[in-house]
């Protein structure tokens, strides 16, 4: 039963979603939208599961003193600080005890992690007491300090100066830098990979040179190069990409049918 039930559910819902597409009736669409709402709800639960998983993995890493365990503190601090900043906003001109609040909150988190990571019982108790005191102080500030407030239903938290500064001056530059580093590796890879070793490699080399040159007004005959590369993009590339898309589409249909009919059972953790 434990194994059969998921197969039955997958078959029923899979067949419904498949047939519903061809039944444009109001009631069928209502049921369809009802199920879609469920997928969103499940997705949100997955988010909570993800946060818990990140927390657990980080704490275990600290506990076991695995290589790079110190970074786990930074990961968790970043996670909780951004959540805290995103849900809070200043009400007037002053922040009041806001900075003290989030620093105490972070210390509380650190103490909780130490409770989980510590093996010595005496120290474990000490960290537990410390975490309780810090938690009480954090909660007290959030209740009695009226200079700032929580915003769970609106996006006002996104206007929090600290949230914006962390996002604009840390998050964006870090991610952009990671993406920009590709330029260096692509250049190095292009130097080594694009060599006229055989006919196919030569074709690839010329296609790459043409497409790269189309942006370049310094190349002699730039206009003709641009025309040739546009043709390359619009004709051979288009044909190949369409073939790939069609192939993927057919593959997806085949896989979906296999899942619905219980032939493909990979999602159950078994082949």
């Amino acid at each position, binding site marked *: 039963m434990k194994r059969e039930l998921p197969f039955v559910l997958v078959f029923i819902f899979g067949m419904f979603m498949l047939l519903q597409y061809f039944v444009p009736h109001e009631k069928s669409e209502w049921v369809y939208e009802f199920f879609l*709402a469920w997928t*969103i709800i499940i997705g949100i639960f997955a988010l909570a599961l993800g946060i818990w998983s990140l927390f657990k993995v980080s704490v275990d890493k600290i506990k076991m003193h695995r290589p790079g365990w110190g970074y786990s503190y930074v990961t968790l601090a970043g996670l909780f600080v951004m959540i805290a900043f995103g849900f809070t906003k200043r009400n007037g001109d002053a922040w009041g005890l806001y900075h003290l609040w989030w620093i105490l909150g972070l210390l509380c988190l650190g103490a909780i992690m130490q409770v989980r990571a510590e093996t010595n019982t005496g120290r474990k108790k000490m960290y537990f007491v410390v975490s309780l005191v810090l938690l009480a102080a954090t909660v007290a500030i959030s209740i009695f300090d009226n200079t700032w407030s929580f915003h769970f239903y609106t996006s006002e938290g996104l206007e929090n100066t600290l949230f914006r500064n962390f996002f604009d001056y840390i998050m964006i530059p870090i991610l952009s830098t990671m993406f920009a580093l590709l*330029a*260096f590796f692509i250049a190095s890879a292009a*130097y080594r990979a694009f*060599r006229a070793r055989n006919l196919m490699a030569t074709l690839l080399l010329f296609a790459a040179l043409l497409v790269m040159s189309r*942006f370049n007004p310094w190349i002699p005959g730039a206009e003709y190069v641009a025309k040739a590369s546009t043709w390359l993009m619009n004709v051979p590339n288009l044909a190949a990409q369409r073939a790939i898309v069609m192939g993927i589409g057919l593959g997806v249909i085949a896989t979906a049918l296999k899942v619905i009919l219980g032939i493909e059972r990979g999602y159950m953790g078994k082949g």
Partner: protein
Amino acid sequence: MFYPGPLVALVDIGRTISLVIIGGGLLWLFIRALKGKEVDRRVIFLFIFIAVATPILFPITFGEKATRVVKAVYDKIESLPAGSTVIISFDFDPAMAPEVQPMANAITRHCLVKGHKIIFMSLFATGQALLTQTLRDVVETEFPDKKEEVDYVNLGYKAGNEGVLNVIISDFKKMFPTDVNNIPYDSIPALDDVSSCKDVDLIVSIGGGKPGVKEWVLFVGDPGRVPVACGVAAVVAPQMYPYYPKQLLGLLGGIKGAAEYESELIHNYPRFKDVDTPGLRMMGPQTLAHMVIITFILIGNLSFFIKKRKDRQ
């Protein structure tokens, strides 16, 4: 970047010296390649760094002309009557932002100057903060007369990927009962005539990841027969061509696409001559970096053939 008068000459000198260094260095590597010597990875990195840094410090700009795929998007927005509704979906994260945010800004500018109503939304969690950046840098700065909820509305991010699109194709309000300011859907004048995606005149998805352009085409554009245009990162652009021109009426690919759109906008609306145009600015570093990569490919092939000849002998 604008330099005051006396600095212009210094900028010219700096640019010339940098280009001479790059050219001279590449020539030296070319001569080494004639002896069959390979180039070290770190040397390539150094040249790419100089090629990218030089046009940032000493600007090199080019005149851009919109290609057919970009012009199609521009013409569509231009041809819509004032008061039309356009969805601009910020389906990207900060990693992609330098490449695609200039497109989002330029299209937002174009829509507002034409008097279209804009529905801003995002299928990426981090997209909402980037959306706020566009509102702050473009809408509030350049169009202070445009009112939120009247001329544009910010619906923000909604979790659910394709699920969100599947719902808004038939009922917008069900997925977005309020905007980001918690104002009820029915009290937002900009959404008066919009009950589903089928009521909008154009959808512009900016991004390239998943969920993104493909999902907009599959779940909204095609079933709802709503025109969809997109702006994507250069690496994603070739994958979008199969959808052009039927499912996608046009597309902006990478910085080049952004630069072409900005150039077209400046050409037709001189009021935007002095606004920041990151697309056009970034074409300098990109062009120079491409030149360096092309030269390295040629050097690599030269040393490869010479080595092969030597081995045969």
